[in-house]
């Protein structure tokens, strides 16, 4: 059986620095570190291996994503929703069935295969630069908890201009990737901005189960600009993917039940795959020997949700928020007292005439926004925390003891550091 592409042997090659992609936890940690744009660094050991079957090519960024199922953890304080949450099939300390992507760039095939059943949410953040060619090899590892579901998967780059169906990832108008097979998607991004990607196979189910991530494109002129415009320069950037989970739908998928998606009613609202207060926990990393994500002490339930939403900056730094919404609802986020300048919308640079300045932003399903704000000066009295939250007070789950209304909702913080 021919599972490999015929473009060459699976020869380990050393990637150039610019070819390297920073995925998932490592990326976010670099972002939040402050003092500059997202650094082109990587988790140790991630370089040196190509996606299966591909060879190194100049000016080509080559990545490997696997798709599979797995388990995530909602906030420890979240009340029980009988029988849906916590899911009794979940391995402790996890509680919610998911489908998702994983970054398996640089891993050998047996290690990649060992990641079946270990999906993550939100999907790895993908970064590219205008003028670069991006190859993303998608490997379908199947669903360990649902071997009866023989779904294929795809990668749809949401917002990619002048797409051709072959690389658009809509199974009905194109091809999709069966279990045990690979397919390499090729993209040549020509326009900077914040985009997103998701699986389009059985789209309503696969998207809400967690197969959603951010992909952003830097302008060729300057990697510290959001667009080809010095007014969009930033010091710190934070991608934030907004989604929601109807936990009954997740339980149904784990327990071989079907869902009527027109009854969709979310229970938790997520930033980067986590609900508050987990949004503030640090980012996780991949162990490049085992290929697995590493659990963090005190946050073991977030092993497969490696992306923090905590923003760290020093006073006066320009912070770029790349916000994408792949939930099914329109959301309004607010950062009271902070001027959020909209510089981009749907990966389109906004002219000075089109920009808005507000401490609130509205983002519909499927839309993206790029906003820049200046971090307030550090205060010696210790009041250096500024919340960014969903203004709809009904979009949270509540606390087991009823004390913190934001548990299970979209809320994070800017921490101004000295």
């Amino acid at each position, binding site marked *: 059986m021919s599972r490999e592409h015929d473009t060459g042997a699976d020869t380990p090659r050393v990637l150039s620095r610019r070819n390297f992609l920073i995925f998932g936890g490592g990326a976010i940690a670099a972002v939040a570190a402050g003092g500059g744009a997202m650094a082109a660094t990587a988790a140790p050991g991630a370089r040196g291996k190509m996606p299966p079957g591909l060879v190194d090519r100049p000016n080509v960024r080559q990545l490997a994503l696997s798709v599979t199922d797995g388990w995530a953890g909602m906030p420890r304080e979240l009340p029980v929703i009988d029988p849906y949450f916590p899911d009794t099939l979940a391995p402790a300390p996890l509680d919610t069935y998911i489908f998702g992507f994983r970054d398996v760039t640089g891993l050998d095939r047996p290690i990649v295969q060992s990641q079946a059943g270990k999906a993550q949410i939100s999907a790895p953040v993908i970064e590219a630069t205008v003028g670069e060619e991006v190859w993303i090899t998608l490997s379908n590892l199947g669903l360990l908890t649902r071997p009866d579901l023989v779904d294929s998967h795809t990668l749809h780059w949401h917002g990619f201009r*002048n797409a051709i169906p072959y690389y658009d990832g*809509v199974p009905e108008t194109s091809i999709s990737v069966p279990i045990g097979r690979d397919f390499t998607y090729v993209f040549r991004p020509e326009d900077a901005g914040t*985009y997103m990607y998701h699986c389009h196979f059985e*789209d309503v189910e696969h998207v809400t189960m967690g197969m959603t991530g951010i992909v952003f494109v830097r302008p060729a002129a300057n990697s510290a600009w959001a667009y080809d415009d010095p007014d969009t320069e930033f010091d710190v950037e934070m991608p934030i993917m907004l989604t929601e989970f109807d936990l009954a739908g997740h339980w149904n998928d784990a327990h071989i039940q079907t869902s009527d998606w027109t009854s969709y009613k979310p229970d938790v609202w997520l930033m980067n795959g986590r609900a508050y207060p987990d949004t503030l926990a640090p980012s996780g990393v991949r162990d490049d020997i085992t290929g697995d994500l590493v659990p963090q002490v005190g946050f073991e339930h977030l092993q497969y949700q490696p992306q923090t939403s905590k923003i760290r900056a020093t006073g006066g730094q320009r912070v770029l928020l790349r916000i994408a919404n792949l939930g099914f609802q329109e959301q309004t986020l607010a950062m009271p007292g902070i001027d959020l300048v909209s510089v981009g919308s749907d990966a389109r640079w906004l002219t000075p005439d089109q920009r808005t300045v507000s401490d609130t932003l509205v983002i519909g399903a499927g839309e993206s926004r790029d906003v820049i704000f200046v971090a307030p000066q550090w205060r010696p009295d210790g009041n250096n925390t500024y919340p960014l939250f969903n203004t709809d007070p009904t979009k949270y789950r509540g606390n087991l003891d009823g004390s913190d209304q934001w548990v299970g909702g979209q809320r994070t913080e800017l921490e101004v550091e000295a």
Partner: protein
Amino acid sequence: MTARNHTRPAAHRRARRWGAVALAIAGLTSATALTTNHTVSAVPPTAKSEGLLCTPPTGATPGQANYVLTAKEGIINLPDGNSMLMWGYANGNGAFQYPGPVMCVNEGDVVTVTLRNQLAVRTSALFLGIDGVTANGAPAQAQFDQTATTATLRSLTDDVAPGGSITYKFTAGHPGTYLYESGTDPELQIEMGLVGSLIVYPTTPADTSDLLGESVGHARLAYDDPNSRYSTEHEYMVLLTELDPDVHYAVEEGGVLQSADYTEAYTPRYFLINGRSFPDTIAPNGAGWLPAQPYGALAHVEPLQISATPTESDNPLPALIRYLAVGGEPYPFHPHSNHEKVIAKDGRLLSDGGVDLSMEKFAITVDPGSTIDALFTWTNVEDYSATANPTPVPGPDQKNLTEGEYWSGSPYLGGQGVLNPEVQAKNVCGEYYHVAHNHNLAEATNYGAAFGGQLTLIRVDPANTTNCGNA
């Protein structure tokens, strides 16, 4: 009430329409208008098979546009075999249809709309975004049921009793895309289907001078502004609505609906474009198997060829998409394949003192009761071809892929391959298909079943070829 075969409730009338669905798909594969039996359709058989389908006004007096709308009930079909009792605006003495006629008038026209009520309840027509509407000669006003001590809002505009008629009149002051809908018990009557669209065309002629003087009869402006120029051959309507079957069932059974039926209990299950749910959205205008749902939503274009000196064969004019929404929440509509340039909202250009504020969007959120006009082109930027410019990574053997029914079997525009034997291939000539859909993906379903609902296709034919019927 109109005569109707009413032996079983609509919600249980699951006529097996698979034959009709198969026909709908077959319709897609024909590049020319189908000659299906239109005798029961709400639009004439001579109507164009794709794109916005205007109902012309009656009367030949220049500057006058007259319409007669008849509010009546009828039945629509959904792709899963369900059918539903509806109320709608019919054109004059024409058959029931949903949505109502697309009224197309010119800027400055005096528009007269006579509404005849064949429903069992009072009804009305409210023209959103239109100034100076009169009803039977007096300024249109909200209507109240008065008692000695109370005044209860009955209708947002002058309404008409069953069996009666009322005449609305206004001057079409601004070009653009507008909604009309019932202002009487709108929570029920809009849900039941009393909605339609009104297009006002500008009087300014389109400048065609940069097309090398070629005859481009299909160049037109959407507004009195050169940035709104588009091709009349590629003008499309996307009217977004939703239906809760329980409401329609209750009406059919003569039930009395309470406010809680529109708040707590209200759960739409069907999400429609132009009164149809995918795959019916891609069937031709006036398809005989959708007699009460005359408007298709398939967009059909050729690639824009980038040229310093464009000619008509370069397809330099964009398509115009007119979005309208009626329902309980914003619909986030996501066209695949390229951004669309949003040039107007609610019948007004996006500009401020001459500053162009149009915006390219990959997701267009259409709010209830509002309209958006957007321009669309698609360019074959990569220009991949099997010989001169193959895709950088050769694909695996097709046996290692799952293939879709609209897939051509080739990555290349105009290319075709034989699909895996289990796939019912629907591609004709190597054309590309892209989806355009509501990104609240629960609403891109037919009662929860994926790849349905508010979803349609954008068909891109190879430029200037003969085998797609578009030489």
